[in-house]
């Protein structure tokens, strides 16, 4: 019986980690739908990973039947917003892109927290 006090907290912690990842996947899916219907064969996710990182992931099958994927990360730094795509280089985003991203985050704010609120009432 001595293992129970050790095992239970670890199980709770693991449950929270699993739930956290699952909620993130749910949020990513909801975020991916902010920009309109997703074309058939596409998978689009847009979500806030942490305070400094927003992620946009898109997958699709090209004309040759090959699966393609692009992951774009926006890094929120005190001195500005930087972007990386696959490679390890960081680039400062343009004015137009900043404007678009701002709109996306505003939409995100309108949709995602209320969706999480509803989720919270049911778990």
């Amino acid at each position, binding site marked *: 019986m001595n293992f129970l006090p050790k095992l239970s907290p670890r199980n709770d*912690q693991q449950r*929270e*980690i699993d*739930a956290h990842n*699952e909620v993130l*996947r749910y*949020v990513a*899916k909801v975020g991916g*739908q*902010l*920009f*309109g219907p*997703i*074309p058939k064969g*596409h998978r*689009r996710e847009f979500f*806030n990973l*942490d*305070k400094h990182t*927003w992620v*946009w992931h*898109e997958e*699709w*099958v090209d004309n040759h039947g090959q699966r*393609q994927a692009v992951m*774009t990360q926006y890094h*929120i*730094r005190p*001195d500005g*917003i*930087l*972007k990386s*795509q696959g490679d390890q*280089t960081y680039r*400062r*985003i*343009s*004015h*137009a*892109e*900043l*404007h*678009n*991203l701002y*709109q*996306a*985050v*505003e939409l*995100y*704010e*309108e949709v995602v*927290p*209320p969706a*999480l*609120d*509803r*989720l*919270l009432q*049911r*778990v």
Partner: protein
Amino acid sequence: MSNTYQPQPDYYSLPRTGSPEQIAVMSIIEQTISSIAYFRETASRADADIEEALHPERFPLRNRPVQLENSVGVSELTQHHSDLINDLAEARARNELDAAGPLQMAHVPVEQLAAAATQEAHQTFETAVPPQPAQFAAVQPLAPMEQPQPQPQAERAPAPLEQPTFFVPDGSNHNNFGLAA
């Protein structure tokens, strides 16, 4: 900004209690709200910086020459010295001052005073520029967000973020919480 989300107060005022799943959801709500606020603050600042670089004429105050300690600008300082020189010259013409005294100031070229003041202003500008982190030294400008996204021609997605439209989930997908995704 319309429909700004107002978080439930108990997310912040009470310790997190509940099942691990509830705690996970509350944690992500809190993180989301905090991240959005941080993004908005940073984006607003970056937006002003970009606007200023593109349209410096819209930021007359931010581009105004640095003021010296006595609150006199470079051009005003130059004018101040010109006036002083003129006053002294007039005083000498009236024999009101000793020729060996302050009249020597009249021999200091106005341009030299202005150059010194300008150099001081530039030095102040340089020290006011925050240093770039070394890891971001090679930052290059990039095309707008919608362009780098490679899309197949046949099934091209709507230009992402170009005209974002709210999409109502159809409830066809479910996650393990039993809720529509």
